[in-house]
């Protein structure tokens, strides 16, 4: 095993060489931040969630077996941290407002988007409008570069099911983009 591979570093962390976690942090803090940011769009919260992921890696380092890719394990932890955060918010009665705020693109904004030919902004809005489970698969595959098998391991399902979900998520995203385009062109 390459001594600088993710697995090798994590095994060293497990065996007490905690400094090696710094290398893993340098490798993965941005991908994790990007994952959380694309999921929830709140930078400060995303930073807290990244911190929470590394805290959990430290806390559960003894349970790391080295089976499968390190990133699969790490994104499983990330996903759980994200889910736990929203569960906690729900328990505390804090309304999750981000979806509504994020999904509403008022008429004026829509016009601006189209007028400026900012198609990527429109695509971003469409992506945000997707259901979270579908958005998550697109993010893990398209942005984080995870294989369908790895995503399947994280979501505890089959590779085939993930491929089908990916196709359907992309199709729905396409329909959303087209709907937004139509809405804009009618203005």
């Amino acid at each position, binding site marked *: 095993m390459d001594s600088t591979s993710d697995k090798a570093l994590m095994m060293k962390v497990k065996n*007490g060489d*905690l*400094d090696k*976690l*710094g290398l893993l*942090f340098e490798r993965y*803090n*941005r991908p994790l*931040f*990007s994952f959380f*940011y*694309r999921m929830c769009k709140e*930078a400060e919260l*995303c*930073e807290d969630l*990244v*911190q929470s992921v*590394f*805290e959990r890696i*430290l806390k559960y380092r003894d349970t790391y077996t080295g089976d499968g890719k390190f990133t699969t394990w790490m994104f499983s932890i990330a996903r759980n941290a994200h889910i736990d955060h929203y569960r906690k918010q729900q328990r505390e009665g804090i309304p999750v407002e981000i979806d509504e705020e994020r999904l509403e693109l008022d008429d004026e904004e829509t016009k601006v988007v189209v007028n400026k030919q900012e*198609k*990527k902004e429109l*695509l*971003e809005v469409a*992506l945000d409008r997707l259901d979270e489970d579908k958005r998550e698969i*697109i993010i893990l*595959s*398209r*942005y984080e570069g995870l*294989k*369908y098998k790895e995503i399947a391991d994280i979501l505890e399902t089959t590779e*085939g099911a*993930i*491929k*089908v979900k*990916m*196709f*359907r998520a*992309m*199709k729905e*995203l*396409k329909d959303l*983009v087209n709907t937004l385009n139509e809405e804009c062109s009618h203005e």
Partner: protein
Amino acid sequence: MNEQHQQLIADYLAGNLDDTGKTKVEELIASGEIDFMEFRELEKLHEDLGSIPAPSPSKEMSSNFYAMLEEEKQSVKNPWFQLLKDQVQQMIAELTMPRLAYGLILLIVGGFIGSQINNNDSEIEQLSQQVQDMREVMMVNMLEGASAADRLKAVTISSEMTSVDSEAIHALLFTLNNDPSINVRVQSIEALKRWGNNERVREGLVKAIAKQESPIVIVELADAMLELELRNSAPEFRRLIEERELDFTVQQKLESSIAALM
């Protein structure tokens, strides 16, 4: 479109297909089993997704991570650190002025870490002493706090200490004589009673009699004197009765205390 075709397109988008797989897709498009327009749109959309930027995290995130890592390293190197941390967290949780106390505690913890780094053989008693010292410094500082609730907490902390030094005694006596809150003054008497064997405490309690205005504190002091058998407090109480217009019940209480002390 059946699920096999959907899976094939998903693989195509992710770049998983070899030449055979790509040919298969082309054949399915040619036969009309995969809609060409839809396929092109999905391909373009997948490509466009790459244009959506994500901001970078702040430098603070990195600092927070390394602070957390350092803390974990300390707790591994020195398991007492965890114990100390738990103690500190417990104390912080009890406070209503956590910021001030937290700053103070950080200072103390920093000193503790520094002292422990090169001293892995320290005994558990040393830790207890550190915690004890920390409690004491914290108590003295909290007694100067603006909130009566925090000053009460400070007095309570003193009751958890196994020993106190002259600075802590001075702080408690100062509180007894000067605190604007009657509750805090009464509680400081309770706290001082625990150190009733200390000569400075005994002297301080007797001298405090003349400085009290509140009947509640005076009665509390009278009880303390009886409990500690401080006979030299009798003349002080006598003077109080003669010089002040005390409430009748307080006066009676002091008379009976004097009689018991004589």
